């Protein structure tokens, strides 16, 4: 149960809900116990000579009153306990989401979206069930059993009770066994369902290959095998699951037979009344439910614990802020250049360094371009500048101030970033542009859009700036997405612009205009652009050429050509050919 310590705070705050809820539940359990006894009294009164009608009416009204009480308290415990579980669901989801937001990108490299979504949905559900329904089941299992047994012993006949309850311990033991293997087989089913999903997913991703090599039959067989394995795992589950109800009924019927034979004799011999016999039967029936509940409790609790543990391990993940004493104010050295000083970086679990012993300078107020083949480390340079990751060796300096001496938020507030895929949110275009500056005026938004040469196109959309992007809204072309992302980065005129491949889907004349716009931002804006395009590279003040994470060359386009830097010339020739093809 240690897993649930994470929620201690929640329980403290909502303890009265739970305490009261359990009290209402106990009230229901108690009232339920009275009904069989009253039915017994009713029977005896009915069969008595002479019959006392007033007494009968009295008992009947009592039964009715208790029924109303049961219904009322049932309503209450549902509201209290199940309600608490739903508050918990909300609380836990908020908390987990908030935490996820603060986890560094290295965490997201390790964890796939699908898995994280599973934690946010399935695991939270399982925890909710374990702290709602299973509390109810637990209380029922313990108290209903105890009370039913108590009433059997005290109000009817202890000998009959002893005899009738002989099967109970056997039932408990066999149930314990049953739910253990049931749980394992259930996990087996989940696992093979996962395999089934994976096979289908892989197949659909590979569909072109499957068709091209006429692998349809091979794939059908492969799928048939996983599907059959899934079916078999279900069969294994059913073998155990199938015992569940028959077992309860079996032990129930043994008790029933004992009551009929032995209880019947007691009545005939006058040891107990016929009403006692009826009441006893009622208690026996009531016992069936907690028996079933006990099995479910174990199941729910096990699943809830496993899910809680998974959530805990997420909550234990450390958030990003590095341990150094960060400087909270913007130092005077902002006018300085950015230096990569002997940086070596390797992603967690990677076999090779992404950047090795890399040193270069990004001069302030200029446009620096960074280029190199795919996988040469361009995007990693951006990630380190954003402080998504920390290099294992070397440091990034702003002037002579190590970057990680600045507080993370302070540093990031000075950046305008455009990611490689130009991520756009399902929201209005205006909201996308003013993403980081929700207080921005329409004028500022349009100004940023104009700088990114997208204003006119936005105006042409149905709804203009208020047009919704995404599933139910407008569809944007890749180039439009890139330029809206660019406008988002430009809004608020941050002193550092980090643009990861911003023009890959933008045509050359538009690109020219955008670069001219950015030049007009003046000497306070330092710009880093990654690109393959010779056109872009030519316009940069300085080009940094990366090769497998190392610095291959640096300098302006003309300088690099003059020096005949082989890596750069090769890149340019290939790229020029590409651009030649694209020309009209």
């Amino acid at each position, binding site marked *: 149960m240690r897993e649930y310590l994470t929620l201690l705070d929640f329980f403290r705050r909502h303890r009265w809900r739970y305490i009261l809820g359990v009290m209402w539940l106990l009230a229901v359990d108690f009232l339920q116990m009275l009904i069989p006894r009253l039915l017994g009294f009713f029977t005896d009164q*009915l069969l008595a000579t002479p019959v006392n009608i007033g007494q009968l009416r009295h008992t*009947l009204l009592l039964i009715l009153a208790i029924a109303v009480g049961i219904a009322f308290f*049932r309503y209450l415990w*549902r509201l209290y306990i199940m309600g608490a579980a739903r508050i918990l669901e909300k609380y836990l989801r908020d908390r987990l989401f908030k935490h996820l937001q603060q986890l560094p990108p290295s965490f997201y490299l390790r964890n796939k979206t699908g898995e994280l979504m599973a934690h946010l949905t399935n695991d939270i559900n399982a925890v909710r069930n374990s702290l709602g329904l299973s509390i109810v089941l637990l209380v029922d299992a313990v108290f209903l059993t105890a009370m039913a047994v108590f009433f059997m012993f005290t109000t009817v006949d202890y000998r009959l009770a002893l005899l009738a309850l002989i099967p109970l311990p056997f039932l408990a033991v066999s149930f314990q066994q049953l739910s253990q293997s049931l749980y394992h087989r259930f996990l087996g089913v989940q696992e093979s369902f996962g395999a089934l999903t994976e096979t289908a997913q892989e197949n659909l991703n590979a569909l072109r290959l499957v068709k091209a090599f006429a*692998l349809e039959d091979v794939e059908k067989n492969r799928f048939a095998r996983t599907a059959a394995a899934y*079916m078999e795992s*279900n069969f294994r589950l059913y073998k155990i699951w199938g015992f569940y109800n028959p077992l309860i009924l079996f032990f129930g019927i043994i008790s029933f*037979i004992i009551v009929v034979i032995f209880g019947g004799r007691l009545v005939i011999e006058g040891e107990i009344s016929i009403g006692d016999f009826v009441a006893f039967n009622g208690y026996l029936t009531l016992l069936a439910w907690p028996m079933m509940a006990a099995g479910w409790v174990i199941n729910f609790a096990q699943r809830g614990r496993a899910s809680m543990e998974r959530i805990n391990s997420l909550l234990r993940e450390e958030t990003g802020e590095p341990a150094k004493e960060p400087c909270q104010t913007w130092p005077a050295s902002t006018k300085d250049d950015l230096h990569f000083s002997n940086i070596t970086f390797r992603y967690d679990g990677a076999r090779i360094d992404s950047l090795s012993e890399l040193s270069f300078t990004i001069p302030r107020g200029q446009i620096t371009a960074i280029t190199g083949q795919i996988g040469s480390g361009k995007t990693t340079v951006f990630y380190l500048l954003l402080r998504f990751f920390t290099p294992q060796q070397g440091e990034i300096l702003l002037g002579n101030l190590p970057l990680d001496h600045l507080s993370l938020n302070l540093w990031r507030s000075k950046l305008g970033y455009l*990611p490689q895929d130009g991520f756009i949110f399902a929201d209005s275009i205006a909201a996308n542009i003013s993403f980081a500056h929700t207080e921005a005026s329409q004028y500022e938004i349009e100004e940023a859009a104009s700088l990114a040469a997208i204003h006119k196109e936005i105006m042409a959309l149905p709804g203009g700036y208020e047009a919704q992007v995404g599933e139910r809204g407008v569809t*944007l072309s890749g180039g439009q997405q890139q330029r809206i992302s660019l406008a988002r980065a430009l809004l608020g005129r941050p002193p550092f612009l980090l643009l990861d491949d911003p023009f890959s889907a933008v045509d050359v004349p538009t690109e020219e205009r955008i670069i001219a716009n950015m030049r007009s931002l003046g000497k306070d804006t330092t710009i880093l652009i990654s690109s393959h395009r010779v056109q872009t590279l030519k316009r940069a003040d300085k080009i940094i050429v990366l090769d497998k994470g190392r610095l291959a060359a640096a300098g302006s386009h003309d300088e690099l050509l003059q020096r005949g830097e082989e890596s750069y010339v090769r890149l340019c020739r290939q790229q020029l050919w590409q651009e030649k093809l694209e020309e009209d």
Partner: protein
Amino acid sequence: MHGHHYFHDEKPLKPDPRLLRRMFAYARPYRGALLLALILTMLVASLQLAQPYILKIVIDDYILGPGELSELTRLAITFFIVYSVGLALYYLQFNLLMRTGQRIINDIRRDVFAHLQELPLSYMDHNPAGRMITRVTNDAETLSEMYTGFLVDLFRDLFILTGIIVVMLQLHTPLALLTFTFIPLVCVAIIIYRRKAQPAFRELRRQLARLNTFAAENIAGIRVIQAFLQENNRFNRFAGINEEHFQANLLELKIFAVFRPAMDLLRSLALAMLLWFGGASVLAGAIPFGVLFAFINYVEQFFRPLNDISERFSIFQSALASAERIFQLLDEPKEGETVPGKKPLHKIRGDIDFERVWFAYEDEEWVLQDVSLQIKAGEKVAIAGPTGAGKTSLVNLLNRFYTANRGSIRLDGLEIGELDRQELRRQVGIVQQDIFLFNATVRENITLNAVNLSKDELEAVTRSAGSYSFIQELPQKLDTPVGERGFTLSTGQRQLLALTRILVFNPAVFILDEATAHLDAHTEEMLQQSMARAMHGRTSIIIAHRLSTLKMADRILFLRQGKLTQLDNFEHLLEELQL
């Protein structure tokens, strides 16, 4: 834009008889098993019905009556034996039914999967893979509830309800009729509940979908959010949606919290009425006490299936929705049917002839316009051109991924539309732009589990393809798992594996859709050798991006805006590129 679709279009469904008929068609092969399960179900249910009746006999005939105690014992033991046998049958019934349900679903699942294999690529282009996966997995799973949970359970419930009614009528008709006056009340309660619960439930689903969509987008865009310091803003919005979800959750809870106790109360009322009037009958000597006692027990039993019916309804609805989605997919027309053996392809030389071919993905937006092209067997043709000019479309027509709108395409003089599709594709080997590797071993990725090669043959073919040395360096050589959880291979290595596949499958025609990725000099050189091997002795069409690849071709064609021209002055063009 980065849509993770957690939305299911939720609309109230009326059972469409055609849909039901198709669902039953899948159950048809198992009708014997289902019938047996049904019979067993009824036997088991009869025992449940018998128990109160036995008690009635015990009370009236033995406890209150003159019956012998030894006879009572015999009766009890007989019932115990019969009941135990019944429980064994119950176990069998459960397994039989559930297994049959799984078998039916397995059939459906396999059909859906097989159908997915045969759908044209144009369908795939327009439908996200995630949605199709759900058809095979979750939708099929939900549907299984239809066969097991719904069908048989409903039948059992109806059987029990009918059984109770019959037994009660038989025991004492006036008292039974009196008890039945409660049935309309119960029906009204259920109808009211459904009216309230259904929209609440739908709203809850909608809010959940919103919540999940938002969360998924957030995870996908986490870098942007963190770079722009928007963690708090995004959290506040999430918390807002979470709150709305909570409110919907609470409403649903409240409705349910009223319904169940209300049903219990109704049952108690029925019981009280029964006790009052039944008690009067007992006093009047019209019925023995045991009958009243049996009635009490039957009323208890009567309410259980009624309570379940409301839950069955939701199951039924979601199963129906899943069925509709599944059958919609199965109704999608397949790729042009193969005609096995119509024009068998024995050994192809590899003459290719495109004659005045027009092609558009969407109507009239021509990707290829009047393209004519003859390639002689063994010739190596390179196609260059800007992105979006139709290069990939051109080769996609040759292996019938898509069908030309006009014109004709012939292989060795045979119209490709008349050839067996799979046979044709086996003869046209392709290396695609982004190379797909299965989450399997290197060996399986080379042979694709479709070709059996001995160890020596594999060695020979990998040596020939130039992939031998890098495979030898992998930790488990050919048995090294690649892909998601195994080794991640470099772009160059992936291409080497794809080229090795070509040598393994040995097609007459070789198509290479070159990746645009920039490669370092060493990798480029290595790949060129492998490409040369793959081209050797095959008609080859290379969609080339790299200058070095173009040089390997006999002939260079230029495709621009869907029109094909010959490129003659390639040498001249190269000179122009001097910086």
